[in-house]
């Protein structure tokens, strides 16, 4: 019971935190942000590892294996593609270079 109450408390706090974190993000970053939070829910991989580590029949091992495979794809693909996207965001060009161009 104690454990459940602690979990519920964390759930509520994390939910408000999630709301607060995202309000007023510039449109510029909506796509990378969606992609990054998408990678973060790949934390489900933790659950996949735990369940695959438990003993079970062959069928249940297959289910666990696919879950871990999916989770790993979510994590690695998600962070990787976000990094690629954000790598293209160039900082404002220095003025010196601008003058030379003109």
């Amino acid at each position, binding site marked *: 019971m104690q454990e459940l109450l602690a*979990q519920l408390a*964390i*759930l509520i706090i*994390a*939910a408000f*935190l*999630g*709301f607060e*974190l*995202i309000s007023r993000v*510039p*449109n*510029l*970053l*909506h*796509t*990378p942000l*969606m992609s*990054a*939070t*998408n*990678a*973060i*829910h*790949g*934390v*489900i*991989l*933790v*659950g*996949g*590892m735990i*369940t*695959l*580590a*438990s003993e*079970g029949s062959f069928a249940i091992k297959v*289910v*666990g294996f696919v879950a*871990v*495979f*999916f989770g*790993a*794809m*979510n*994590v*690695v*693909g*998600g*962070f*990787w*593609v*976000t*990094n690629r*996207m*954000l790598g293209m*965001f*160039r900082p*404002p060009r220095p003025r010196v270079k601008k003058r030379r*161009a003109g």
Partner: protein
Amino acid sequence: MQVATFLAYLAAAALFIVGIRRLRKPETARSGNTIAAVGMAVALIATLFVIRFESLLLIGAAVILGSVVGAVSAQRVQMTAMPQMVAAYNGVGGGAAALIALSEFYHLRVEGEMSLVAALTVPLTILIGSVSFMGSVVAFLKLQELAFSGAVSFPLQQVVNALLFVGILVLGANAITGGAILPFLSPVASVVAVLVASAVLGVLLVIPIGGADMPIVISLLNAFTGLAAAASGFVLENYILIIGGTIVGASGTILTRLMSSALGRPLGKIIFAGIAAAGSSKQDDGEEREVNDVGAGEVGEYLSDEAEKVVIVPGYGLAVAQAQGPMRDLMETLESAGKTVLFGIHPVAGRMPGHMNVLLTEAGVPYDKLYDLEDINPELEDADAAIIVGANDVVNPAANDKEQDSPISGMPILNVEAAERVIFIKRSLSPGFAGVDNPLFYDTDKTMMLFSDAKQGLQDVVAAVKGG
């Protein structure tokens, strides 16, 4: 749970939060993503210490396989295909959550220690995870234009969905009560049935939604997968799953609302009605209306002789024509002639919010030139020219017309009318995605229409500006 693992989970949660915080500014966004990835690594390594050592080989094999597929696809994907890639990663996350709950249900039954919380959250996780998985698959197929293109609907759709949902609840209850409701169906068979029925529900929920609303659906499914991860945290009594999943569930919900309000489309309307099929587009009375049809030379002349401040409004047509490069050339050419060039990016330019920004930065446009809707409208007031390339709906003043009930009414638009001259580079007079005619086309004093492919048109204008 070991204290060390618990503390590592808290550290991982902190890194997720710092990471997301840094993702709110372009200067720090990339490091924010890296920090969140480090948090993920911390959580995964900490988990290794609480699981059976013998299982590491199997886990390692699955992780490596998944990582390779994820990395290769992430490295290869075209930036224009980003929405479907995000949908794919989101789908597999939801699928993982559903499978984990299924597998845990089996374990908990074998061990005979199913708590009430686990009993309730297992069917919930399977439901949300499975809907998210198949919903994302359908979204992927639609965006990749492989299947279900447009809005697919069939009679009594809402009724079928509701019945399916009730069926899922009954099957879930049957699983929890050990077969008390449907004695012929074992509890394990019942949760498998929940998985399958939820997958069908996921398909049915997404097929009636049109392509333009798909980004919002992906964002919503992203939030769903977060919730599924959080629910699985209750099944497994695992704190990092609860924290990580809930943060994504909550932030994903906010992001979805931001996007749908940017589109001027209430979320309920999108989900329950599909796209309000372009019925009101049949306004043309066959009357030929006059437009100011110009050549690239004329546009170039105006830009080089009379325009000091130019605002460019790119739409998805630009990306389709792969014209980001010529667009950057135009910017550089005008800048080297001492003119100011800004970009006005509508929230829904591209295929998902912020997508156009990614495409332009890929082409080498610095992000401080990319202005949001609310920032560019004041700039348009004193702009000498607004150049609209491959866009229509987002600059269509018809959206402001309260009298008319069109698919875009109420959508905030870029107020290009405020600029001295409006230049459309467009292949034809055909209305845009929403099918609503744009009155600006026919304002022959203000508007110049350059009928051309986006890429060719921009190249011609660049040549004309240089030549002039």
